[in-house]
Structure formats: structure tokens, C-alpha cells
């Protein structure tokens, strides 16, 4: 049992929980994730550790309500407990002083990007961040990222905040202005990562993407999270979650993420009636 010491709403669909997990807080590095099972009935799902404080013994997770398990998690209140939490899992982000780093995040993918931005900054890099969302109310962590970046750009699909359009538009204009980057990190929906990384790679930037396939144990045992990278099967939980974007088989990743689409839409129907209770306490 792990206590939720703080519960915050970052946007209409996105929540941030601070969890009392001193051991994980001590060990965790940027890029790593945890496996959480909020209640007896829920699935085990992976979530990136968005922040941590080893002295105070907590970690933070940021998640969007998309399925039954994130819904059950969102219904828990500050001061109550999640049933199971294990980690830190996955390989940490490879961080060194590259020079100038570009960090591009979309939607709730901005959350796993944030600890990488912090680590890159701490390693002495110049960090340029581009974050985006469908609309202003869905854009998260702008202030936190601004604090850790040398420059920040924002974009919303509907133009309700920042540039009207996609994060890729902003990258294109930087690239057209001949700005040079030594490394890029891209995290967001699969389609966004695919499009954005194809542009950064074409611009000659070494690009990493953090993948979030379906997992159960998170320790390599089930192999459900396998992804193809440079024609080789990798397990995202132990070989990743970050991979060289140039080698990722995006189509396969998208397919595999849709494995249980039917089951999930049935689950959403099941939860529909109780959606009014719980979320906004």
C-alpha cells in the first residue's frame, strides 16, 4: 500500500499524484517508470516517474484518464492508498553534456519528457523545449518546463494558446532558421513521435523516443511490450523505454497498442454511469 500524499489536477484530463515511495525515490533516474495497480480489480500499468525527491521520499506520476485502470486511479483521493507500486523500471535516459538538446513533447507525453529535460539541464546542456496539446486546457507543465529550459515554445492544435498548429511546425521553423541541435528527445502519441522524429532525423539530429507499449510485469518476464528496433525484437521494459527513433517500427507499435481496443471500449461503456462520481472530488 502506497499513500497518495498529494493530488493535483493539471488539466481537465490529466492528474498529478505525489506518492510516498522512499526506496523508489532514492533509486530512480530520469527516464525510468513504475508499474502501478491502483486497486484489487485493476490492471498493472506502466507510468513514467515524472519527478522525485529522495530526501522527502516521494515520487510523482502524471497520467491521463484513458481506460478503466487510470479511471480507478483517478477516483482515489489524497490521503488514500494505491494497492501496488513497483519500480523503478527500465533503463535510465542516457544523459551527458551533448551541447544543445531539443525536447519535444505532445499531450500527456510532456509528463515523461519533464524529468529528461531536468536531467539534461543538470548535465549542463542548453535545452530548447517544444510542448503541445490539442488545446490550452490540455497543455501541462508549462511553467515547470520553462524553469528548466533555455527556451520554450508552445503549440495547440486549435490555436487556443501559443502557435496554432503542431509542435512539428515549430521545429520546422527552427530548422529553417538553421538552428543546430546535437540531440533530440520526442515523447507523445505514437503518430506525433513518428512524424516529429522523421523531421528531426532528416535534419541530422540523433533522436530518441520513449515508448509506452502494453506491459504486465515490467521486468522482462512476459514479453508483451516487444517492439521492433532496427529489425530486432526488443522488450521496452528492460531494453527501453527509450530507443533510437531512426530504427523504430512505428506501424507495428501502433498496431500492438490497439490489441485490446474492443475490450477497452467495452470497459469505457461499463464505467460510463459512474463517471460523475469519483473524478472531481
Amino acid at each position, binding site marked *: 500500500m502506497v499513500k497518495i500524499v498529494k493530488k493535483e489536477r493539471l488539466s481537465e484530463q490529466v492528474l498529478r499524484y505525489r506518492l510516498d515511495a522512499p526506496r523508489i525515490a532514492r533509486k530512480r533516474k530520469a527516464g525510468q517508470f513504475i508499474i502501478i495497480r491502483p486497486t484489487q480489480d485493476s490492471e498493472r500499468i506502466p507510468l513514467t516517474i515524472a519527478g522525485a525527491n529522495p530526501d522527502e521520499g516521494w515520487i510523482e506520476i502524471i497520467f491521463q484518464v484513458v481506460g478503466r485502470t487510470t479511471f480507478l486511479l483517478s477516483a482515489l483521493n489524497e490521503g488514500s492508498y494505491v494497492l501496488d507500486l513497483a*519500480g523503478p523500471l527500465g533503463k535510465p535516459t542516457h544523459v551527458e553534456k551533448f551541447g544543445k538538446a531539443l525536447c519535444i513533447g505532445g499531450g500527456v507525453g510532456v509528463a515523461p519528457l519533464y524529468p529528461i529535460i531536468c536531467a539534461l539541464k543538470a548535465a549542463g546542456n542548453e535545452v530548447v523545449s517544444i510542448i503541445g496539446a490539442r488545446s490550452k486546457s490540455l497543455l501541462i507543465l508549462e511553467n515547470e518546463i520553462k524553469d528548466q529550459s533555455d527556451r520554450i515554445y508552445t503549440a495547440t492544435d486549435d490555436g487556443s494558446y501559443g502557435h496554432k498548429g503542431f509542435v512539428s511546425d515549430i521545429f520546422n521553423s527552427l530548422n529553417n532558421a538553421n538552428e543546430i541541435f546535437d540531440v533530440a528527445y520526442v515523447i507523445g502519441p505514437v503518430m506525433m513521435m513518428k512524424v516529429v522524429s522523421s523531421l528531426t532525423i532528416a535534419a541530422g539530429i540523433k533522436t530518441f523516443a520513449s515508448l509506452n507499449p502494453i506491459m504486465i510485469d515490467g*521486468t*522482462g518476464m512476459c514479453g508483451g511490450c516487444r517492439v521492433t528496433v532496427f529489425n530486432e525484437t526488443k522488450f521496452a521494459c528492460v531494453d527501453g523505454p527509450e530507443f533510437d527513433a531512426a530504427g523504430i517500427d512505428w506501424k507495428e507499435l501502433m498496431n500492438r497498442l490497439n490489441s485490446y481496443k474492443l475490450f477497452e471500449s467495452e470497459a469505457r461503456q461499463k464505467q460510463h454511469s459512474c463517471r460523475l462520481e469519483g473524478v472531481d472530488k
Partner: protein
Amino acid sequence: MLEEKQKTVRYDRTPMREQKPEVRAKNFDEVPIGYSPEEAVREAKRCLQCKKPLCVEGCPVNVKIPQFIKLIAEEKFAEAARVLKETNALPAICGRVCPQEEQCEIRCILGKKGKPVAVGNLERFAADYERNNDLIVIPEKKPANGKKVAVVGSGPAGLTCAGELVKEGFGVTIFEALHEAGGVLVYGIPEFRLPKAIVAQEISWLEQLGVKIERNFIVGKTATIDDLFNEEGFDAVFVGSGAGLPSFLKIKGENLIGVYSANEYLTRSNLMRSFRVDSETPIMKGKNVVTVGGGNVAMDAARTALRLGAENSMIVYRRSEEEMPARRAEIHHAREEGIDFHLLCNPVGILGGEDGRVTAIRCVKMELGEPDASGRRRPIEVKDSEFNLECDVVIIAIGNTPNPLIPSTSQDIRLSKWGTIVTGENDARTSKKYVYAGGDIVTGAATVILAMGAGKLAARNMMNDLLGQK
């Protein structure tokens, strides 16, 4: 001379009642129903009570077989269970999943002229009787000796090692990566072969004895082995982390939707209870399910698929039935339930539709050639014999490779070229001082009882090394 009738009694084994194949293929209840007390006594009375019992030598943990069987014959069922527990912490489990036919029963003298005594059935009976009648007692423990031992993994090796040490007065903590203790007994072996309530009971017995279990703790990640020594104050560590990462065939189409490792398929069904309608963890049930492999895990997966509602559950195996590593009883049960065996067939690719979902598995026919290094006849492809088996789910059950999580964070533990941990033959010691190992992480995929034997061996040597005594 025995009379004819007595001979029959002596040589014929009391069969264990089972659910009928057509019934059990549709439920997750246990297949064998168990002995009644009368049946158990009748079977126990067949035992010759040999002065030099060969059966005991065949058992990796040397269960006192004639003694416990004698107590059953005398209708002292709970006492029989206690004798079992002197050497085997998990009799209800071993009675179900041990390959007795290769260990104790194969050595039974009665087997020379008739059928060997049903040691496994009797073991199961005694343990079940004790549990079902609330007769379980917590044995005496030696006073605390001040030594702390960490056990990594709560599978059969870890549970056995913990049980042995806690009785001797050690402070024992088990670290389990998953949210539930039991290892393969919980995530791997299905309910119909080993009810989870029994595993939970055996674990609760260890907890009552004083074993602490920390779930959701991944040694190598949450803390390394060195952290366990330096920060958590343990005096010794036993590594029983199990089989590890699933192997795949490395053929085209293996990442299509609907292709599972047996580990994933069984974990979804067993640990996450996908077989129940109220489970939130989904599983692709499949109309036509192909399981690739010939071991016990393959049988478990194929039989699970049937119970989840597959119209056609098939096994594809590249050798013949004779070479199958699964227990004969499991193959027999699978056949009875209607599993379709495609023997001497080797998958060469998995085919899928536009949506990325499996539509068929492509196989080639095989024939057996000369024996290979394993002594089994090597399968050779038959030219131009490729064919497709239509299916919507494929389960790959061809084994595991050791999980590198612990070795990669404890580089002073020596590994074999296969990645398993190297230990002394008869002491379970690794190359790192006060670190011991046993079970599948040392042997590669093996049996529950061999893992238990290793856990016991490690415990004995830990006592010796930490306390300077046997």
C-alpha cells in the same frame, strides 16, 4: 503366497477420480478430485514399507515416504501431513505438480510386477486433509539467532529456503517483484492444475512461521544485492529469481497482434485472473489457438485456451510425442480434453491481415533423423511440405532465458555462457560471498521440486556458513 485377490489389491493402484474431460474442458476447476479417506487408506496399505526405501532416494528433498504412508494406512492423516512437512514445506503443491513417475514412484518395488504406490496422490491427500480440516499447526521454531537472510523471489526455491531458515531461528525476508507471492506457482501454473487458494495457504503458513514477504520489490532495481547487505543489514542472500525472459522463435510475424509468449498468456489468465468475467485485464480468447512447444507450459497454455472458449486448441511441436518434455499425464489430459496435436511440424512464419492481427501460422513438416546432443532424434525438414494452420491466437511456449536483472547489477556473481548463475555443485554457493542461488536461475527451466531441493540445499549451507554448523 498371496491369494489372487490380494495380489490384485497389491498390484493395482487406486485411481484418483477426475472431472470428466468434456466437463472440465469448460471450467477452471481442478481436474483430479482427490482421494476419499477410504481410497487413501486402501492405497497406503499397498506400500511394502521397505527397509531400504528406494523411493526416498528418488526424491530431491528426501521426503520420508514410507513413514507418512504408514500413518495414512493407520488413518492418522494429520500426522502424516506433519511428517511430510518435516522435509517438504509445500506438500499440497508437490503432491500435484511433482513428476513422481520419474522420481519416487519409478523406484517403487511394486512397480516391477504391478503399479507403483501412488505417492503423489497420497501426499496430496494428507496435505489437503490437514488443510481442509483446520489441523495445520505451526511447528516449533528455534530461538532467534540474530542472523538476517534475504530471499529473492517467492517461487518454490525461495519459499523452501525461507521455510528451512525461519525454523532454525533466522530472520527471513522474501522479496517478490510481483504484487502476489508464489512465483511460477501463481503466474504460471493454471488454476485447474494447482488451485491458487492452496498456494496462498502454504504462503500464509510460512508467514505465520515468521517469514516476512515484501511484495512489489524488484531486487536489482528497487535495491541491489549490495544494498541488501550494506543498507538493509542482511547477512546472506538467496537468489531464486526464476526462469526469466521468454524465448521467441525469431520467425516472421511474431509481433503480430494475437501472438503471446506463454508467460504473458498464462500471467494474464492466472495472476491477473483474465479468465474471470470481472477481471479488468483483457486476454484474447481466440477461436483457433495454436500453442508452439512440447513442454508442461505448452500443455498448460493449450488447455487454458480451451477453457477460455477456443473451438480448436492446437499444439504444434517439431518432434514426435515421444520426445515431448511434458509429463505423460499432462499430455494424456490434454488429449482427453480434445487438444489437437500437430506433431513433427515446425513453424516457419506467422501470417497476419491488414489490421496486424494473426490469421494463420505457416509450418513445415519434419521427420526424425539421427540423435542430436540431447540424445533425442534430430528433426529434419521435409522438402516442399509447407502448409498453413488457420488461427487467431498463437502462444509461443519454447522456454525462457535467464533474467539479467540481478546479474547485471551484481557483477561479481559469475554466470554460465547461457546466462544462468553458476553455483557450487553441492552447496548452492555463488562466486559472491554469502550469496547463494537455486532454481531455474541456476538450472534453466526445470521442475518445482528440483527448485525446492536447491532452496533446501542453499538453506543448509547458509546455516553452515553463518552459524558454523550443519
